[in-house]
């Protein structure tokens, strides 16, 4: 059974979700969006899935469209939260996990989706953070991801602009700011999977088998911390791949990857048990 990096990457994202969690993704996040549906169809059948900008609860869309606010995403849902209903739930602590990405991500998991260069006259004006700046403060756990780690411009020592706070900024730690959420728990990149150590600093836990530690080190803009028990990323199970291919026939997840990375394909070692 063969699969591609975008498929494996999405399964790695899906596995950061625990069953019975209430989970949310923002718009413009096809990989996270697909990952949530994969999780709900495999190991997290009782999660409460809030479908992005539609705020639909536990929908079963026939496919994922190229926009995060389309009626197709609410199909099969019995209830759609109001905009404010979702944000209130997240602020008061009823949302357990949110997926968050960044054009820049610092070692403590702060992210920048606002501007590259000085914000007053940016080199690149990015789209903006949507609701992240408040949500990141109060949602239970954050799963961060990027598909552009290899570029060397994504994992940086310092973000040009902090849109969404990670474990600490120059203003202090989350505790010092009175934030009720736990902050970044995972950072999944197309090269490997990081968790965050006791200092709230990213630490490499898993590597994709076609990637070397040197490649990761070279692509990472801050001193790389590596877990003692560094392992390869566990391969996707058949059920996870089937769920993924079922929910994303248009392949919107691929829009996040560079053409080069999309050529990465893998063979499943036979007889790997699916965790679901």
């Amino acid at each position: 059974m063969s699969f591609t990096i975008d498929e494996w990457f999405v399964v790695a994202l899906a596995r950061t979700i625990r069953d019975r969690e209430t989970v949310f993704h923002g718009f413009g996040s096809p990989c996270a969006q697909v990952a949530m549906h994969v999780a709900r169809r495999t190991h997290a059948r009782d999660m409460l899935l809030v479908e992005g900008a539609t705020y639909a609860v536990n929908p079963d869309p026939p496919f994922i469209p190229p926009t995060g606010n389309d009626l197709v995403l609410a199909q099969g849902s019995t209830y759609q939260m109001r905009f404010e209903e979702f944000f209130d739930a997240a602020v008061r602590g009823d949302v357990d996990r949110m997926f968050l990405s960044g054009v820049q991500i610092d070692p403590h998991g702060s992210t920048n989706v606002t501007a590259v260069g000085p914000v007053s006259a940016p080199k690149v004006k990015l789209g903006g953070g949507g609701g992240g700046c408040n949500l990141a403060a109060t949602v239970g756990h954050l799963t961060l991801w990027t598909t552009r780690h290899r570029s060397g411009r994504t994992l940086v020592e310092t973000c040009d602009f902090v849109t969404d706070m990670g474990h600490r900024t120059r203003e202090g730690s989350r505790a010092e700011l009175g934030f009720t959420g736990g902050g970044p728990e995972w950072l999944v990149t197309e090269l490997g999977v990081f968790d965050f150590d006791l200092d709230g600093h990213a630490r490499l836990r898993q590597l994709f088998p076609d990637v070397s530690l040197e490649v990761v080190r070279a692509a990472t803009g801050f001193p790389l911390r590596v877990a003692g028990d560094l392992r390869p990323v566990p391969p996707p199970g058949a059920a996870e791949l089937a769920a993924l291919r079922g929910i994303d026939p248009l392949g919107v997840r691929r829009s996040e990857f560079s053409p080069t990375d999309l050529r990465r394909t893998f063979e499943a070692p036979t007889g790997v048990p699916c965790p679901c």
Partner: protein
Amino acid sequence: MSFHHSNDKLLSLASAAALVSDGALVALGGGLSSRLPMALVREMVRQGRRGLHVVGSAHGIDVDLLVAAGSIAVCEESYVGFEQDLGLAPAFRRAAETATIEVRESCCATILAQLRAAEFGLPFMAVRGVRGSDIRGLHPEYGEVTCPFTGETLVAVPPLRPDVALIHAPLGDRRGNLHLDQPYVLDERFAASSRNVVASVDRLVGSEEVDRAGITIPAHLVAAVSEVPYGAHPSSCYPGYAYDRPHLATYVAAATAGGEDLADYLATFVAGVDEEGYRAAVGAARLAALSRWSESTADWKAVFA
């Protein structure tokens, strides 16, 4: 914000858009590529509106087109772009990078809190978060407040009371009752916090029909309503029509190239035509195709191809 008692608020699109003055604080309804008040946006461009201060959550071609046309001075949205699919907002990006517009980027939850302050008749609202984000630095108008019970310091935000909220609905009556389908995004909050709601509807119907569908925004909050078929195009307005992805791609290409290409787009689809001309330029066949989403999953997928 006092109630609108008139029983006939039906206006032409031109008269409705004319209720927005140069320099007005304007709330844009809908979100991303769904239920954007595009006909009103295009008409404001035709009328050469200038110096607008726009506020809202996550938006796309509505804001970018207004920036491209030079109508916006201050942009206080939480996001402007075309998601992963079509990427950054070309005109918005260019204007921000050359500082020809002021970007007061905000956060959906903060905007909600500010609208609520206006809706609740309060001089401020407290928000968690924002501290720790550089977005705070873009808003000297924010303050701080200490909780009299816990002693914790929170960010205080002032009321946001738009001069006008532009809202597109699939269905409405001439009294101003509007029916929307979910997601309402911030439209209900805009309607309650703004001084005036100016609405466009795909179909003007009798009050009974709006009542049967369910009144989302009541007449007493609405100052004017105008009937414009496909008034949200190229964004979606379900159940009528899905968003027109190829049209968005055409716009993004033109706006990215700028110059002639952008001028051509504006001439063909905005300045050079009225809304009837706009629909003709888009093409009846294309518009019909966008309504075919409901026929089968295959048809729905095809709309996004």
